[in-house]
């Protein structure tokens, strides 16, 4: 990687802005090209009448936005996106905190447990979801079978996990949680591992029991990393279209459609690029708001 530079004199830790610029400009340029430009293009499409094969594109103002805001399908998708994300992230944070605490100290079999627990995250999303699709199948679901054996249901009035709107929504949330709990646990382990051993010891000597140490000392000290886990989980859930696409394809009757999956259905399957772009643009304000909020709380919870 021979980079030709102007002769920069490095004295101690003096700044070398030229070398610096040379080193980060490839990355910055790439990001501008592959993220920045398409983003602008997406905005452009949202205000146009572009279709997949269209050769001419015209400016149509707010027409796309007006029509999607009026469609109940869109409102349902927006609501779903928010509800799924909030519920899933809440469950993920609570479960991963519990799990990371249980995995902190070494114990016999910990290696195996860690391997098994990580599987949902390392498996490609689509494939894990297919597994769940079979597990939640309306006729052959193994869960149904177990419940039938336990006499909660008969084989004929068993719940349609993916066929009834409420259950389908629950199933989607379930798959998201299943995927993200391992990841969040790893992140939490990083956070709790960073707490010096002497602090919980001091708390113990000061008279704090398990719960007080957990809630008043450990968790506040882990706050920055918890926020990282929340941020990633939120982004992964809110912007994901794969789970919905494979599990329910948005059904039954569009009840599990989310913004990203609706955008895909409209934009690519429905060939209406402009409407698709407009729908997916709604992702941005929520994400920005979430990130802003995170950064604020993180800087206030500065611990070191």
């Amino acid at each position, binding site marked *: 990687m021979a*980079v030709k530079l102007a002769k920069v004199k490095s004295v101690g830790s003096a700044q070398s802005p030229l070398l610096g610029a040379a080193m980060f400009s490839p990355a910055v340029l790439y990001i501008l090209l592959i993220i920045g430009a398409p983003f602008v293009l997406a905005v452009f499409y949202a205000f146009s009448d572009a279709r997949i094969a269209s050769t001419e594109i015209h400016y149509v103002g707010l027409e796309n936005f007006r029509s999607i805001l009026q469609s109940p399908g869109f409102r349902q998708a927006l609501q779903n996106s928010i509800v799924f994300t909030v519920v899933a992230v809440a469950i993920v944070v609570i479960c991963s905190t519990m799990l990371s605490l249980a995995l902190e100290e070494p114990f016999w079999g910990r290696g195996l447990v860690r391997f098994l627990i990580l*599987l949902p995250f*390392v498996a490609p999303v689509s494939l894990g979801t297919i597994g*769940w699709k*079979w597990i939640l199948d309306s006729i052959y679901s193994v869960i149904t079978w177990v419940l039938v054996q336990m006499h909660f249901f008969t084989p004929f009035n068993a719940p349609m996990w993916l066929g009834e709107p409420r259950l389908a929504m629950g199933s989607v949330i379930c798959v998201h949680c299943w995927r993200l709990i391992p990841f969040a646990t790893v992140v939490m382990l990083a956070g709790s*591992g960073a707490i010096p051993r002497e602090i919980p010891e001091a708390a113990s000597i000061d008279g704090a029991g398990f719960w007080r140490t957990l809630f008043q000392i450990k968790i506040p000290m882990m706050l920055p990393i918890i926020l990282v886990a929340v941020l990633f989980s939120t982004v992964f859930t809110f912007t994901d279209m794969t789970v919905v696409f494979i599990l329910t394809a948005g059904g039954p009757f569009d009840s599990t459609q989310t913004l990203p999956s609706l955008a895909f259905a409209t934009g690519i399957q429905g060939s209406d690029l402009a409407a698709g772009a407009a729908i997916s643009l709604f992702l941005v304000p929520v994400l920005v708001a979430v990130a802003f909020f995170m950064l604020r709380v993180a800087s206030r919870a500065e611990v070191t």
Partner: protein
Amino acid sequence: MPVNWRKIGGRLAHVLILLVFTVLLAFPFFWMLIATFKQNLDMYKMDNNPFLFNLPPTLENLRFLFQETLYIRWLGNTALVGVLVVALTLLLAVPAAYALTRLTGRWGERLGILIFLTYLVPPTLLFIPLSRVVAILGLQDTIWALVVVYPSFTVPFSIWLLMGFFKSIPKELEDAAMVDGLTRFGAFLKMVIPISTSGILTVVIFSFTLVTQEFVYALTFISPVSQQMVGVGIPIFLVRGDVYYWSSLMAACLIASLPIALLYNTFLDKFIAGFTVGAVK
């Protein structure tokens, strides 16, 4: 010695939590394992106990997968794209992270945060315009479309993580190297990179994972079966109309997941260490 109920209760809860979560999280894979070897007649009978092999196990599903589908081709495509994208990511992100940490002062930090924020512009937003860009560049229907586009979600994260990592390396190390005669860049190559193996490893593993997980771009940019990634190939092409070849599907999922799982397991401690340093600033 009096019985310590507190301690026993705590132990019990501990074991229970581990048990419940392990079962809930790993059970679908266990299920996939069984289904892989089940005969179709066995699978599709409502009364049969799904956990047992009511008919003897078979290799038919595996044979079907490997011989009558393009599974191996898809695995190969995915692996190739993974390696290329990881290499590209490292080439872009490692120097950038170093530069933003060491060489550019305050506004460098801010730029780093901005780069991280681009993470919030998700593929599910960019895929529509990018599909046009890819078509215009003539990369449509090839894996190169993915190789060019994937770093867009691996690079920002990698820069963020590596910035945290480089920040934790004491400056004196590079100063000592420069006093010994290396240039700034030489110090970077010969001193900083070798000690950052943990962070770089985390970046490699995580990026590779993100690549194999990716769905939207692969689905949108590539149509021909032979060029597809495993994550898209299996759900799309192993389903003929409404017919799901469930057993082979399960086998496919299992096989595709295992290598990455093993990778994580081998390097998990390093991964956590890298993440700790990078994220817990």
